[in-house]
């Protein structure tokens, strides 16, 4: 197992996975934060606004991001058609587990990059609101859980089709659907029940913050909302299920 993990780690050296993660985190933060706050009111709820918008942005960016990450992890095997050879040279279970562990490590790095970026934004724009560490941890945990589901689902697609076009195409479609459902849920709560039925939109119900429009003061008010631990557990369960399915698919691959 350790040898498989070392082999996978060596493959990352010339792949610049870090740059890819930086791209995903940078895109999400750029969209989530947008321009600089232009009023004292906005500075006073700077972190809360990001905690609210970032899950919506995740719904748009992460399906494509996870498709890209998964495609990247399997890139060498796909391009040079060496997966079948590797299945005969090393334990298939270890091979798949090493890829999965590396993917999870990448998700951790992604969450770390987002946390650092978020804190840097707070410093840069001098938010006057104190950072709620609990909200930050919940945002990262919820995001990582859904990203892990997406990663496991894309791994299955990769094993089935072996083509990055399918992964990226499905990722783009999921991004579009996720973002639209998030917007619909946002404008009238009309898609809210649908969000629970579509796992790649779970970023939104897992959000720790909601927004209400104060028409009298003409400003957005951000309020904490109950944390859905059951949905987080469901995400982790689904991720485990998809991973086991992927492992089974690898075990049954013909060479």
């Amino acid at each position: 197992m350790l040898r498989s993990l070392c082999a996978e780690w060596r493959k990352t050296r010339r792949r610049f996975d870090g740059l890819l993660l930086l791209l995903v985190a940078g895109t999400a933060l750029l969209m989530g934060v947008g321009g600089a706050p232009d009023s004292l009111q906005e500075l006073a709820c700077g972190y809360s606004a990001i905690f609210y918008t970032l899950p919506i942005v995740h719904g748009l960016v992460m399906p494509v991001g996870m498709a890209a990450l998964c495609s990247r992890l399997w890139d060498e095997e796909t391009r040079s058609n060496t997966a079948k050879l590797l299945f005969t040279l090393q334990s298939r279970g270890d091979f798949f587990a090493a890829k999965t562990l590396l993917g999870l490590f990448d998700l951790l790095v992604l969450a770390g990059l987002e946390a650092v970026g978020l804190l840097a934004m707070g410093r840069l724009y001098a938010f006057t609101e104190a950072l709620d560490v609990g909200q930050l941890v919940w945002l990262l945990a919820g995001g990582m859980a859904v990203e892990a589901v997406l990663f496991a689902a894309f791994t299955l697609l990769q094993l089935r089709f072996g083509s990055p076009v399918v992964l990226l195409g499905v990722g783009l479609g999921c991004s579009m659907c996720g973002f639209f459902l998030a917007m619909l849920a946002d404008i009238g709560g009309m898609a809210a029940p649908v969000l629970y039925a579509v796992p790649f939109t779970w970023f939104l119900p897992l959000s720790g913050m909601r927004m209400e429009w104060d028409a009298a003061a003409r400003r957005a008010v951000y309020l904490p909302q109950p944390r859905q631990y059951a949905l987080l557990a469901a995400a982790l369960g689904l991720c485990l299920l998809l991973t086991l399915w992927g492992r089974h698919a690898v075990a049954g691959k013909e060479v």
Partner: protein
Amino acid sequence: MFLKALWRSIRAEDSKLRGARVWAVFFLIPLLSAAYGTFSFCYNSATVTRDWNGLWGQHTLYYALFFFAPMAAIYAAWLWRLEHLGHNWTLVLSMPVPPLCLVLAKLAATFKLALFTQMWMWLLFFGCGKLWAGLPGVPPAACLLWALRGAVAAVPVLALQLLLSMLWRGFAPPVLLALLGGVVGFLFVSNGWGLYWPYGLLVLGMNANQGYDLLAGQAPPFAAACAGFTFLFCAAAGAWLKRRDIA
């Protein structure tokens, strides 16, 4: 001689698109965008004007900002994919075809796809407007012009994506860069600098989510920006290919 080689290269690139999986992306993404755009148009009847221009705004808002550039990136990455497989680069570089021909042929093939995408998007816009939103009459000619302008604006984006996909052996990173480019393009356009960023040209060209023509009186600078960026990226790709050694 150059034109003959270019024509042969274009036909070779065209053959890569026959039965390719990118056609699924071509059909589905504009379809999803049209479904959302029309739904949003019908739902927001209080805030969106009930005419073809209002529907155009809803159809193109997110399509131009976030989805068209990654689609173009998938087209470009697909056409370089074969070269990145195995030892195909050696074969490609040893063929008696000028390097620039290869780049221009790929640009022509992807432009054809982008043009078809825009036409498909316009057909969906027309169909959704008539059958779903129940709008009277036909769309104004300006909407067709904006769709075609979107295809023109796609040329520099395709040239850039072809350059990125050529340099980066992986399929996915250039697609992610296109998504980031679209987001940055939005910031450029909102600050009035859309002409200076290739991805911003898509928003300007398609007149995304605007009731008035964003390019009124600015057609020459828009055309110059498209031509300039395209020349720059194609020249860079051609120069890089010329210098690349056979491995």
